[in-house]
């Protein structure tokens, strides 16, 4: 535990007043409220989305604009030298625990995947202590992963329960799993992994450059990182296209589709966020000349986030694609 000298405390900057929080609240609440309206119109309504989209987009725009202003202000304060070392540490802690909370968010989905694959699947097929008698309900259901036939399809009924799978994702040979790819070099997830892992490496190189005070090196490698991020998103979009168009794998394809799209989807969303963050840092550096060897928290935070996204992918690759 390092103890601060009391001079540092005097400089702890407590902003006097700020409209940011209220604006961010208006944006956040409008966008979530709008999103809820849109979904309800879609599922329960008559399809007429009266104004819901409007509320949603207004909220989202307002929210993004506020966040933009918020970060800009924080950056300006830093440039103006208002941030003591102690305040900077607060930011570091904030970012660290934010990433920790994101880890826990993903944990929920990985936990669900684990539970479904190792316990529920066999139980539904009448195996194991939790499902000795389940064959009475799902006669003919055999458990496999990926799941070509959901229990409901196995008993041949879509009548009574809300539809799952709709019979489109049936070909287990065409799944996204490695063993089934026609040739290794056609296996998209592997390319995705390569792209993302190397981007983690390039962002590290950029960081080293910055630490050496070599801004040119920093800008180039950070630019490459952002480009790799974009490439990843593009490849992932291709992957989704293939899933829907060629494999018949959709959100409706039972639990395999559910877990597949939730995990990759949220990961993809986080990649886009991380990429945007890095892009902004790149613009700051290239256009605004920000960052020095010993003051570059915005970049550091974004790069931690990027590494986090990368680590999540490694687990995803392992548990969703390989195993």
């Amino acid at each position, binding site marked *: 535990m390092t103890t*601060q000298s009391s001079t540092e405390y005097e400089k702890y900057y407590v902003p006097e*007043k700020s409209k940011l929080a209220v604006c961010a609240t208006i944006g956040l609440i409008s966008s979530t409220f709008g999103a809820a309206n849109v979904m309800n119109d879609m599922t329960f309504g008559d399809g007429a989305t009266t104004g819901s989209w409007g509320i949603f987009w207004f909220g989202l725009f307002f929210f993004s604009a506020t966040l933009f202003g918020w970060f800009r202000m924080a950056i300006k304060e830093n440039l103006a030298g208002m941030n003591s070392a102690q305040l900077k540490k607060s930011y570091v802690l904030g970012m660290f625990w934010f990433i920790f909370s994101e880890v826990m*968010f993903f944990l929920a989905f990985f936990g669900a995947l684990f539970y479904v694959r190792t316990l529920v699947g066999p139980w539904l097929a009448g195996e194991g202590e939790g499902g000795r008698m389940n064959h009475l309900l799902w006669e003919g259901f055999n458990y496999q992963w990926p799941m070509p036939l959901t229990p409901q399809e196995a008993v041949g009924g879509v009548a009574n329960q809300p539809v*799952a799978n709709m019979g489109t994702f049936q070909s287990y040979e065409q799944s996204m799993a490695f063993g089934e790819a026609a040739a290794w070099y056609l296996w998209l997830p592997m390319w995705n992994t390569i792209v993302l892992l190397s981007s983690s490496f390039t962002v590290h190189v950029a960081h080293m450059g910055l630490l050496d005070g070599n801004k040119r090196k920093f800008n180039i490698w950070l630019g490459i990182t952002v480009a790799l991020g974009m490439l990843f998103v593009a490849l992932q979009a291709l992957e989704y296209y293939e899933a829907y168009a060629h494999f018949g794998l959709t959100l409706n394809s039972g*639990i395999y589709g559910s877990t597949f799209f939730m995990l990759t989807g949220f990961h993809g969303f986080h990649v886009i966020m991380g990429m945007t963050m890095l892009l902004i840092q790149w613009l700051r550096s290239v256009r605004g000349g920000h960052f020095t060897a010993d003051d570059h928290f915005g970049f550091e935070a974004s790069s931690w986030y990027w590494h986090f996204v990368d680590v999540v992918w490694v687990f995803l690759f392992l548990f969703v694609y390989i195993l």
Partner: protein
Amino acid sequence: MGDHHHGPAKGLSRWLFTTNHKDIGTMYLWFSFSMFILGGAFAMIIRAELFQPGMQLVEPAFFNQMTTLHGLVMVFGAIMPSFVGLANWMIPMMIGAPDMALPRMNNWSFWILPPAFLILAGTLFMEGGAPNFGWTFYAPLSTTYAPPSVTYFIFSIHVLGLSSIMGSINIIATVMNMRAPGMTYMKMPLFVWTWLITAFLLVAVMPVLAGAVTMMLMDIHFGTSFFSAAGGGDPVLFQHIFWFFGHPEVYIIILPAFGVVSQIIPTFARKPLFGYDSMVYATAAIAFLSFIVWAHHMYTVGMPVAGELFFMYATMLIAVPTGVKVFNWVTTMWRGAMTFETPMLFCMGFLVLFTIGGFTGLMLSIAPADFQYHDSYFVVAHFHYVMVAGAVFSMSAAVYYWLPKWCGRMYNETMGKTHFWISFIGFNITFFPQHFVGLAGMPRRIPDYALQFADFNMMSSIGAFIYGASQILFLYNVIATIVAGKPTSEAKTWEGAEGLEWTVATPAPYHTFETPPQVR
């Protein structure tokens, strides 16, 4: 910028735009109290309907909405924000910090709460009614069979979660980074310690809750099958995820309460806490164990027997660190020189009633016996003993204890004591008989019951009205104190009080510790 020395701004903008931890703390406290009244109003409707057998006041569908909203509003609206408010007020003062670490985010964490609850309460007026699936919202009742308002419920949970996560990050950053020189971890007041650990719990489990409601959202609107066996999922999966959040949640509720009690008892016993170190370790142990016991809420779902045993043993273990706390409080009183002002009375009410609630918790943790207790009123009795007599009592104690410091006026002691005794008696009349009806077989979440339970239910309802009415007294006392209480300017309101918060002026100035104190 730069000029920290003037006081608060005037008017509404002071509250909307503030970054001051005391203002934000005050807003949290008032907000949570209003939610307590709202949740209490729902409870009064529940108790009024259950006053007699037969359906009298409300329809079964509405009754379920009341139960659900009561649970949600009390847990997420009343208790959690009240302790966050307390943390905002007290933590910077207790560790000698000028403010919270991230003041603007602090304001944001608060301001997203009211609209989120507005949306939640607004569901009452929506077609199909408010959420009606219990505060535990088990799928598929909360997915396939839910009213459309469930979508709004899901989003408001998301927002509440965001608020809690940001609030906790702020607290962690404050405690880890803003302590005055010399304020080492092992010198921090216990309230700060319990909150630090609570904040860890929150950051760890709120995202999991967010994951759970997101899966619900996908099942409802986008055709996934997480919680439907037909598509290869499992409704019980929902319960696992929910309780992975839900069990730590109950310790999120009680740990700050432990902290409050650990501050107050030494003050009025005029004697230092018996075992500071072991209190800290016990808190950490409880937090750790809370992650591996969640399935004790699910003994009857048909888990394999090995799972039952594991969760039973792990749950029982929690009695050990909790016991350490209880024993510590009692030995702190031992051979002290006690006086019994209102905060102390509430703490002793807490001590007795929480321990009883802990004992029933221990009974519930015994899996085979829980087959009989589960989802009966015995469980309802258990959790109101720990949450009302635990969290709410300690919150009342905290308010009385620190109110003079907050507003520079002394509350009316007689009224305070009256509030305590009516609460204590009313509380026990309400919830003690619920043990009996529960053991005799009355399920929870029912709007109407068999005749054999009639007498105890009537008793319980009467008690609830008494307890509820005593809260009016509380509200009155607090407002009267703020408006017209006897002014006091003693820095140290209580003779035996220790800690930095008692070294600053009374009422506490708008900005405290702009230069950090030196802690020996």
